[in-house]
């Protein structure tokens, strides 16, 4: 990763400008060419330094529903429960966290009803009651990792 890669990563986290020729606008800003930037971006995605490039949607505004939920999973069953959740397409993320509540996952569904159904299904599958913590207010969303 060289200096141009780093500047491109930092700049692209802030968003592509919505102008007629976005790559030319960025090329001007970063003192490069649009072809060079597209090549670099392709490499960074291929290489896994970037996981995605594209529109970041707020799915709730498009009619979807989200929640964050947690389970307290007995250690002996941890892997099995992780696999059960991994198999569910509505489970978008799942993290182990060092706490009594050791499994934290995000559900993404079409509706609030589908979220409730999904939580019940997890309860039936695992025998564990999820702690449901839907967000009530958003104060900030904006991942920015300067390199």
């Amino acid at each position, binding site marked *: 990763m060289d200096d141009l890669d780093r500047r491109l990563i930092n700049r692209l986290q802030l968003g592509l400008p919505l102008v007629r020729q976005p790559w030319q606008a960025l090329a001007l800003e970063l003192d490069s060419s649009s072809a060079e930037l597209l090549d670099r971006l392709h490499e960074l995605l291929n290489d896994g330094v970037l996981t995605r*490039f594209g529109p970041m949607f707020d799915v709730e505004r*498009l009619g979807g529903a989200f929640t964050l939920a947690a389970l307290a999973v007995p250690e002996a069953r941890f892997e099995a429960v992780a696999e059960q959740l991994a198999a569910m*397409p509505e489970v978008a993320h799942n993290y182990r*966290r060092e706490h009594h509540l050791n499994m934290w996952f995000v559900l993404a569904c079409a509706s609030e009803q589908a979220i409730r159904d999904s939580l019940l299904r997890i309860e039936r599958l695992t025998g564990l009651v999820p702690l449901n913590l839907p967000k009530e207010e958003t104060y900030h969303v904006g991942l920015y990792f300067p390199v």
Partner: protein
Amino acid sequence: MSACISPSEPSLQAPPPLRETSLARRLVELTQEGLPLLEDPWAWLAEQLGLSVESTLDLLKRLQAEGAIRRIAAVPNHYRLGYRHNGMTVWDVVDADMPRLGSLLGAQPFVSHCYRRPRKPGWRYNLFAMVHGRSREEIDSYRDHLRYLLGDACVADDMLVSSRILKKTGLRLSSLSR
């Protein structure tokens, strides 16, 4: 991942004009895996949506202004960039002060997400702020700084450090359309 997705064969008849929400959903489907790395991405989108390039750009600007699209951006693999530590800091704060405190924590550069969430039996924390850093010490110091910012308005707090990613997929529209 392919370098570029070539535009599909132009259809003989343009699709009927769709309402904006349907257009937005179509846009989600089209760009779920990402925006093609093309010199003129708007022309590609325009063709897929059956709109002019100008209308496509206007649609994107409208969706961005409304917040349906946060931005068209790169998502880094933060582990690969050295940000291997993340902590979900959780705070039990006075409800009446929540708007001010939530905005205060959310404004810190090392906080990626900040939300109000409900208290539940056995769960007292109502304010969540996710912090990321390159070391355990770094995220510990962020937590200390947030605690200092909250001062007396905070009754109790904790930080749940992530030790393993069990699943991470982007959002799939299929799970939203069932």
